[in-house]
């Protein structure tokens, strides 16, 4: 059986929850070669939630996000944004790529990167006015980077770069925020700044989804988890889905028992 056929058979029927969900992924299958990286995954993000996507390295976390956003072309599957196809809903989504995915030696300043978040507003040729600059500066202020507006981006530390990326996403003024490993390789102060901003977004009724690596902070930062290892393992509130059993299944026993014991598992 070909991969496509298998993927199509595996896809669940689109259910009613799709209509209200900020992001509903159905039957998503992605392959970079012969082996699927993401296989027939359904994911339903709950409005107003903060969801952590967790799983081991190479489990397809980032790929799932990219496929849902149309950055990577899936073999099969679709994603619906607030009940409609992605194409017409892009203005409702802000995406924060992995920090390491871009060249920070690119010749540009911090404020220019944040202004990229206003591209939908500015279009090809509209002039950047004072109010646009003001908006960009306000976003930098929210992530505690207002003193760095005129810095060249290569002069920033990893944590500062991550905050600039978050500021750019804030400038987009979206409803749904998708972040790919926002805490990877950042200092403690940045981690705190970022989680404060994300919790602020949640308080405003926005929805946040983040690929997350640090199992120790899942219960503290997030209210929902999506666990993946090529296939979906579990999805639900932290209280019901973030269990020892599901972690074992997700990481295939690669986590030492001691590691799991240290986690603050609500349901274990």
């Amino acid at each position: 059986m070909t991969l496509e056929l298998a993927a199509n058979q595996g896809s669940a029927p689109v259910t009613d929850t799709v209509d209200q969900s900020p992001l509903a992924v159905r039957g998503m299958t992605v392959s970079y070669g012969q082996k699927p990286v993401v296989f027939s995954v359904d994911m339903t993000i709950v409005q107003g939630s903060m969801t952590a996507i967790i799983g081991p390295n190479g489990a397809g976390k980032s790929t799932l996000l990219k496929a849902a956003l149309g950055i990577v072309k899936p073999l099969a599957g679709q994603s619906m944004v607030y009940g409609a196809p992605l194409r017409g809903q892009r203005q409702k989504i802000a995406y924060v790529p992995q920090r390491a995915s871009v060249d920070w030696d690119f010749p540009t300043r911090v404020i220019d990167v944040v202004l990229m978040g206003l591209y939908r507003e500015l279009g090809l040729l509209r002039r950047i006015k004072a109010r646009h600059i003001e908006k960009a500066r306000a976003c930098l202020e929210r992530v505690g980077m207002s003193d760095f507006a005129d810095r060249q981006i290569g002069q920033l530390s990893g944590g500062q770069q991550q905050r600039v990326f978050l500021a750019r996403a804030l400038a987009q003024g979206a409803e749904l925020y998708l972040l790919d490993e926002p805490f990877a390789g950042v200092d403690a102060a940045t981690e705190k700044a970022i989680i404060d901003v994300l919790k602020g977004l949640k308080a405003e009724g926005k929805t946040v989804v983040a690929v997350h690596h640090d199992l120790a902070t899942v219960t503290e930062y997030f209210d929902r988890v999506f666990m993946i290892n090529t296939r979906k393992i579990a999805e639900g509130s932290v209280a019901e889905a973030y269990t020892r059993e599901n972690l074992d299944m997700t990481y295939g026993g690669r986590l030492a028992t001691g590691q799991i014991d240290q986690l603050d598992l609500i349901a274990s």
Partner: protein
Amino acid sequence: MTGEEFVPLSLTPMLIGMFAAVACALPGNFLVLRRQALIGDAISHVVLPGIVVAFLVTGAVSAWPMMIGAAGASVVAVALIEAIRRLGKIEPGAAMGVTFTAMFAAGVLLLEQSDTSTVHLDVEHALYGNLESLIWLDADGWGSLVDPVALAGLPEELIRITLTLIVVCAFVWLFWRPLKLSTFDEGFAQTLGMRTGVLGLALVIVAAIAAVAAFDAVGSIIVIAMFICPPAAARLMTNRLEVQIAWSVVFALVSAIAGYVIAGFGPMWIGADNAVSAAGMIATVSGILLAITAVFGPCRTRSGAPVE
């Protein structure tokens, strides 16, 4: 030198050299930042047989057949690369290397084997350009610039490169934001709904148009220096893309003017008789500018380290 000598003999070659240098340097900025600088090299290799075939078919060196020939050669190149890659089961880099070299060799071979003595198209011109011969015989001084009769006799190559430069400038101006955004962060650009694949292809096509148009001025090999040297030198002068573009234009113009003048008069200054190739000297000057900025440019170190 008086206007009577300068306008007919040097003005048009200099303008063609300047316009060609700028037309290549502008897309070159994005190619260099996208780590695709050698695409210019690939284009210049691949289009040569197309240009030669276009000449053999039409019997004249004129713009449209050359462009069509170049485009046809590019299509053949893409097909060949795919065929070699699939049939030989080898990596794309190797397939490209084989294709580019083979097609360039085929172009040179075609040129050598065909009778091109009546026009300015032979191996030497294909390699080094024929800038010095693009003179304006109808001119007799600065006054010719407002004389409709004399203007009608402007070399066709000047019109061609001017139109090309306009197209290149329009493309960069119109698509400035998408080009900048997708060069910096392609994934993010895609989430905005930007067709980054199409845009990247458009950039390569614009670069190809510039390369073919610059064929007259600097030949098909030296054009690669025009794509890389001015933008690379400009990158070392600034950390802002807008300023980098401006510097690259300055470096392109300086290379073209200084290169032309030194090629024409440099040998005399050191007591030699003959002039040297203008295109070669333009590339040399742009290389020297790159070397100077690489040693003295203010932004040549990787800035990576955090500044607190």
